[in-house]
């Protein structure tokens, strides 16, 4: 169906694709693997006509695609879900879908379309509210809208660039199901994921990129996670990480009856209570959109609490400003690297100073000290293995993994009492994911307390000393890792209280 040959693409000095060949047969699912920055997205953007290749040819269904744009790509039968969402935040889900959908017609019929969205999304188990404004939707929901868009546009070859990053296990299963159904109808799929299990489960064959070039390809039959990982990075990164046994210390964070109602009066956080001790990780599982964002941001001081209290190391920070929370020893890794935890246009050094720029060594008496920025940047870049041309490179020029390392270096680097980490491995390759997890365990070993919020069950199970589940703004009773029952967590994530059912 698809034959790409000799694709070359450079961004200035960066060679993102160097002579890549990629073929996809009718009804095949091809996995595209590679570390962050290895050129996967670039290759797909070339295919979809978003960026123009420097060299190479593309043949799709026997016809050459040349100097094409997305419109031509869509018309030819391609569909793409981008790693970075291409949704219009200010519009409703229906509007976003009508935008992408020629069949929506010249004169818009939002009611009819919403009905179709409802039925189709129910059929695929995606559960989308067509009338919601995209800006109000959490990350995971937005991704579902993207998937929906591509499905409805009826593409014959579907490009899925990391579609599963934010889906809960049942949702991932649902998506894989959708993919199988599409395949059965003769559609082809290019599937990009850092999750090797998924790749092994769904793909017929894989193509592995490293540094812009193909380093391996072959059928998935007979491949293992270890062999795939080896192709990607030249070493094995899948072995389980070692976690030291630590006796937790004193309680450092006490959250009691925390609640938050949004402007519309809706309860986003509902009576959430937990405590956290030094050297302990509380991992919270949950499908995205169940209040995790609110919990993280209320703790970080970005959203106001409407009830309850937060006590950090003896200081009541319920209504404290961000700066006071920082001073009290709180660190926060938000999910959104592009606009919140990083300023991509600023330098690596600036980003490393972002939360402490008004203190030594970065400044004194309101005056910035360049030497302080540089020294700190070099130290952190070394300690956290941040790969960048130098402290003065703009952060946007770094790979996703290295960008996240900046955030880790800044938040963990100052040895916080409490770290709130929200999906810190989002979009990271296995190597980078492992790095993040190691750093968080290292913080724990050093006596830090961590609240780890994630939709990825494997991470929750790997990291949590105690584990809880969030659903509908409520937090379940945290359980020690030894007492955890995976099916029970699954049920809790789906909003079913196993205790209640038993009764």
């Amino acid at each position: 169906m698809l034959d790409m040959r000799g694709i070359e693409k450079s961004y200035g000095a960066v060679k993102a694709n160097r002579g890549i060949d990629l073929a996809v047969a009718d009804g095949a699912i091809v996995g595209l693997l590679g570390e962050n920055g290895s050129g996967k997205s670039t290759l797909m953007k070339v295919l979809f006509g978003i960026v123009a290749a420097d060299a190479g040819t593309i043949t799709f269904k026997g016809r050459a695609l040349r100097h094409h744009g997305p419109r031509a790509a869509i018309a030819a039968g391609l569909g793409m879900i981008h790693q970075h969402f291409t949704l219009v935040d200010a519009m409703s889900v229906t509007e976003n879908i009508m935008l992408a959908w020629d069949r929506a017609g010249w004169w818009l019929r939002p009611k009819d379309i919403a009905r179709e969205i409802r039925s189709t999304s129910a059929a695929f188990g995606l559960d989308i509210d067509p009338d919601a404004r995209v800006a109000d939707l959490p990350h995971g929901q937005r991704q579902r809208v993207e998937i929906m868009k591509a499905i409805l546009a009826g593409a014959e070859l579907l490009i899925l660039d990391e579609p599963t990053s934010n889906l809960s296990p049942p949702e991932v299963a649902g998506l894989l199901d959708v993919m199988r159904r599409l395949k059965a109808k003769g559609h082809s799929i290019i599937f990009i994921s850092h999750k090797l299990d998924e790749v092994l489960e769904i793909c017929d064959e894989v193509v592995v990129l490293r540094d812009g070039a193909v380093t391996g390809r072959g059928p998935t039959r007979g491949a293992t996670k270890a062999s795939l990982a080896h192709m990607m990075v030249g070493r094995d990164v899948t072995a389980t990480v070692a976690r030291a046994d630590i006796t937790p210390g004193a309680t450092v964070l006490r959250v009691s009856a925390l609640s938050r109602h949004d402007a519309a009066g809706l309860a986003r956080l509902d009576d959430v209570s937990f405590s956290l001790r030094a050297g302990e990780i509380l991992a919270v599982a949950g499908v995205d959109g169940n209040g995790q964002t609110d919990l993280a941001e209320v703790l970080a001081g970005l959203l106001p609490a409407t009830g309850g209290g937060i006590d950090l190391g003896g200081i009541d920070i319920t209504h404290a400003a961000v700066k006071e929370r920082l001073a009290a020893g709180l660190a926060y890794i938000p999910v959104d690297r592009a606009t919140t935890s990083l300023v991509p246009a600023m330098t690596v050094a600036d980003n490393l100073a972002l939360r402490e720029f008004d203190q030594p060594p970065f400044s004194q008496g309101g005056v910035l000290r360049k030497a302080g920025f540089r020294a700190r940047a070099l130290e952190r870049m070394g300690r956290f293995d941040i790969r960048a041309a130098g402290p003065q490179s703009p952060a946007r020029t770094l790979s996703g993994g290295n960008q996240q390392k900046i955030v880790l270096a800044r938040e963990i680097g100052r040895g916080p009492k409490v770290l709130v980490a929200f999906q810190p491995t989002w979009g990271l390759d296995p190597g980078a994911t492992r790095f993040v997890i190691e750093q968080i365990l290292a913080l724990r070993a050093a006596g830090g307390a961590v609240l780890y919020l994630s939709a990825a069950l494997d991470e929750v199970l790997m990291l949590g000393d105690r584990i809880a589940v969030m659903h509908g703004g409520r937090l379940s009773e945290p359980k020690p890792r030894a007492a955890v029952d995976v099916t029970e967590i699954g049920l809790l994530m789906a909003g079913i209280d196993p205790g209640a059912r038993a009764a």
Partner: protein
Amino acid sequence: MRTLAMTAGAIALALLVTAGLILLAGKSPVTAYGALLRGAFGSLDRVAFALNKSTPYILAGVGVALCFRAKVINIGGEGQIAVGGIAASAVILLAPAGSPPVLMLALAMLAGAAGGAVWAILAAWVFIKRNVHEVLCTLLLNFVGVLLVSEVLRAPLGEDGAGFPQSPLFPRAGWLPKLIPGTDLHIGILFAVAAAVLGHVLLWRTTFGFRLRVMGASRPAAAYVGVSTARATFAVMALAGALAGLAGGIEVSGVHNRLIEGFSHGFGFNAVAVALIAGLNPLAVLPAGLFLGFLEAGALAMQREVGVPSSLVYVIEGLMMVFVLCAVGLNARNRRV
């Protein structure tokens, strides 16, 4: 470097197009452009005039650059200049006779800055507290500020029997000293240079500038960092207003030696142009402001000397801006934040 070369090309192109129009008007472009050059650089007096012209553009432009860096779209320079001019004039005219000149001028300039700042803070208040778009607040207050000049000239500060809305001539002590005796060049340009340098230091070397840059790059990031956007908005608006108000004070005391209706004609908008052409870098506002000042000085002289219609002055200015913006725009992608 590339930007410079392309900017030069853009200027050449604008001159070329206008040359055609000058021909149409029946004049020789060579003579006309000769006059333009002489009008801008031909003598110490011409340079002095051009520097005076650049002064308000630079002062107000630095403030605009800082605001726009923080993504606070302040287009209220016109009103802030007007109110600054009123405040400075009031100090000079109402000061007791025989006040020491240095003190009087210092107070007048401070009053000018304060007046501009108040006007800007007023806009910021409506913007922050009442959630009205800042472009609208600043734009509407421009109209009011300009009318305020007419009103104070009609009643409290006006000169009786003058043929035009203007105040009495300031006492000598209220005239800004000349930088080069014998020319019109007053010391305002020193304020402008200082503002550009200090603006640069403020933006790149202080925590305040860092806050502005984070805020301009991303509001969510600013919240995450703990920057209070309201506080920073008030601060940067007050600063920009003060610079514009100072420009107003300098203009009345240095150029006109009196408050006169229309003393700021489009300076506020020119300041926006200058700031953006300078890529929002306070230091680059200096050459950008000088460019516009010298261009206008030259074009006005060209009109007088060669008799090209005044409308062509506008055409040259407009074309030059468009072409220079295109050159700057093509190279703007790697702007430092």
